[in-house]
């Protein structure tokens, strides 16, 4: 795939203030996203993985400007050139919101129970200028068919559908205004395995048909292996490893990714993995450890890891590069 970025993130930080006491003074910050450099290429599926609380959702929202970065830039590139989204106001973002959509984790809460499916789905259409109701009904019907549901479903209410169906409706809504990029935030995690496969297949079919770009957020590394072209592994608000999916699984560089991969139960009796059991819990992003954020749980930690933050550096990998942030990996390409 030619490296044609649709979005470029440079040093993106999202810090949420923590307010305490009667005066609601800001006493600390949650460093949810803490300095991320990342390109999303047009037409790719980029996986974003990591443990609960590491900042995946926040980064996904920062990409779409649903939360605003407190530092850094997000730049969109399209036919009309490059636009820095982070400096746009709401009016300026309007044209881009149409191109960048999100499908949320929870199929139960993402549809308004008081509206029919048509009611929920026509909203973005009206917003983006589809004037007549008849036209909107036709488009919504087509969308529902695109996600393997019957047109008639549009006149029913969310509670009449199963979780998998609701998730498909959520996808239909994201597709309604022909986006170029969809952030799928744990879009299949809450679904039963048999339904999960239905939704995964649907997502892949739609991508082929419409040449979509996905940022696929999940904690399931079996799904990303199957689905993604590239994978970014996050730990405490930082990207600690980034490379082609195949490369990540065959030549894991970062000790955290190694532990994460080894911890996944594999549904294959011939591949009993050697579990690396990490000690302790995921530390708090309010008060992240000094130096390498992974050092309190890392079995290779050295003195330098406690004091110096490792930068994300490039290493040679087949035809491309493999990025990792760890002091102990030798021979970076350039420094």
């Amino acid at each position, binding site marked *: 795939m030619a490296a044609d970025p649709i979005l470029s993130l440079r040093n993106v930080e999202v810090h949420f203030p923590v307010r305490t006491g009667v005066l609601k003074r800001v006493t600390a910050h949650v460093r949810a996203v803490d300095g991320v450099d990342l390109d999303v290429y047009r037409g790719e599926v980029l996986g974003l993985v990591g*443990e*609960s609380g590491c900042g995946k959702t926040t980064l996904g929202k920062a990409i779409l400007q649903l939360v605003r970065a407190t530092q850094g830039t997000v730049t969109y590139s399209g036919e009309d050139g490059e636009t820095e989204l982070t400096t746009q106001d709401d009016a300026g973002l309007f044209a881009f919101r149409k191109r960048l959509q999100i499908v949320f984790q929870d199929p139960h809460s993402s549809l308004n129970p008081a509206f029919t499916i048509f009611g929920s789905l026509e909203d973005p259409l009206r917003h983006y200028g589809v004037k007549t109701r008849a036209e909107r009904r036709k488009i919504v019907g087509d969308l529902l068919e695109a996600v393997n549901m019957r047109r008639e479903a549009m006149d029913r209410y969310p509670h009449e559908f*199963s*979780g*998998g*169906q609701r998730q498909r409706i959520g996808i239909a809504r994201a597709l309604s205004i022909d986006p170029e990029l969809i952030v799928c935030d744990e879009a299949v995690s809450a679904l*039963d*395995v*048999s*339904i*999960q*496969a*239905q939704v*995964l*297949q649907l997502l892949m079919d739609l991508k082929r048909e419409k040449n979509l770009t996905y940022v696929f957020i999940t*904690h399931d*590394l*079996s*799904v990303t*292996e*199957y*689905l993604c072209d590239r994978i970014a592994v996050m730990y405490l608000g930082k990207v600690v490893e980034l490379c082609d*999916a*195949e490369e990540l*699984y065959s030549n894991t560089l970062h000790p955290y990714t190694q*532990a*994460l*991969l*080894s*911890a*996944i*139960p*594999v*549904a*294959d*009796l011939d*591949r*009993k*993995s050697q*579990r*690396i*059991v*990490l*000690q*302790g*819990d*995921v530390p708090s992003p309010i008060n992240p450890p000094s130096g390498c954020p992974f050092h309190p749980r890392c079995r290779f930690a050295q003195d330098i890891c406690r004091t110096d933050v490792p930068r994300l550096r490039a290493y040679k990998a087949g035809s491309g590069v493999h990025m990792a942030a760890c002091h102990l990996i030798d021979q970076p390409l350039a420094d």
Partner: protein
Amino acid sequence: MEHDVALTVKGLKTYFYNNNRCNRAIDGVSFEIRQGKTLCIVGESGCGKSVTAASIMQLLPTLSRIEEGEITYHGPDGPVRIDALDRGGAQMRSIRGKEIAMIFQDPMTALNPVYSIGFQIKEMLMYHTGLGRRERHDKAIDLLASMGIPLPERRVNEYPHLYSGGMRQRAMIAIAMSCNPRILIADEPTTALDVTIQAQIFELMDTLKRENGTAIMLITHDMGVVAELADDVAVMYMGNIVEAGPVGTVMRNPVHPYTRALLDSIPVLGRGKDQEIKAIPGQTPDPYDRPKGCQFADRCRHRIDKCDQMPPETQVSDDHRVMCWRYEEFASDGR
């Protein structure tokens, strides 16, 4: 071998009643749990996994009852028919917790928010052991330490809301483990947790099984967990065990179309992008309006007319059984 069986369930039927309608949630289920072994129960949401566990623990919600069948606990003093005991009676209370312990799907339902974690462990110890006050306190700290809870001396006095999700689940396991139960029933104990924390908990359960000979019944919907932890596996679908046997047999030579479809529908780590995953079409039937015959018939591509009648439970071999009219064809199709 009769003597190493810790619990036998035979022909269990547990029904729910709602507005004069009946949900045959468990409709004739038989299995046994062996000492020092792990039985995994897998299946889709709503297939009856939790109700099976609640039936054994005599913790069924109101509006539901055991209609038929036997649940026999093979205790140190000979067999006890659990289903015949009074659910609030002294004998059931002493079995619950001391002999058979349970870890729930959601730790907050089992932990009492108004008592400290330590208090809850010590209460368990007071009911079920002869330990004195001081010893109970020390034992509680020991248990927390063995669960990898940092600073157990301090944490023992803290309330559940101060624990992270992973720590709560481990605290609950500490409570469950406090009296060295002979049987541990774990209902999706790690579904809400990160894989690295899940790995810690599985390590603990493995140790219990090995060192104390605890019989474990582990409920999950993750075939990866089954492959890694199970000795035996029972696959449930809509209130029946449709296939059961040693994990190697069921995963390598499954003969029920549902088991096969389930295994084909999940991406397996290590198989890369080229693996083909096949979604199971359709969805589970309405539990209050079940098909008369094979519950899987609507979604089964091998369905024949005969499948409108309930298939009997049939032994494929000594330790492998299935509920499908056509299993013999599948047993010899060399898959």
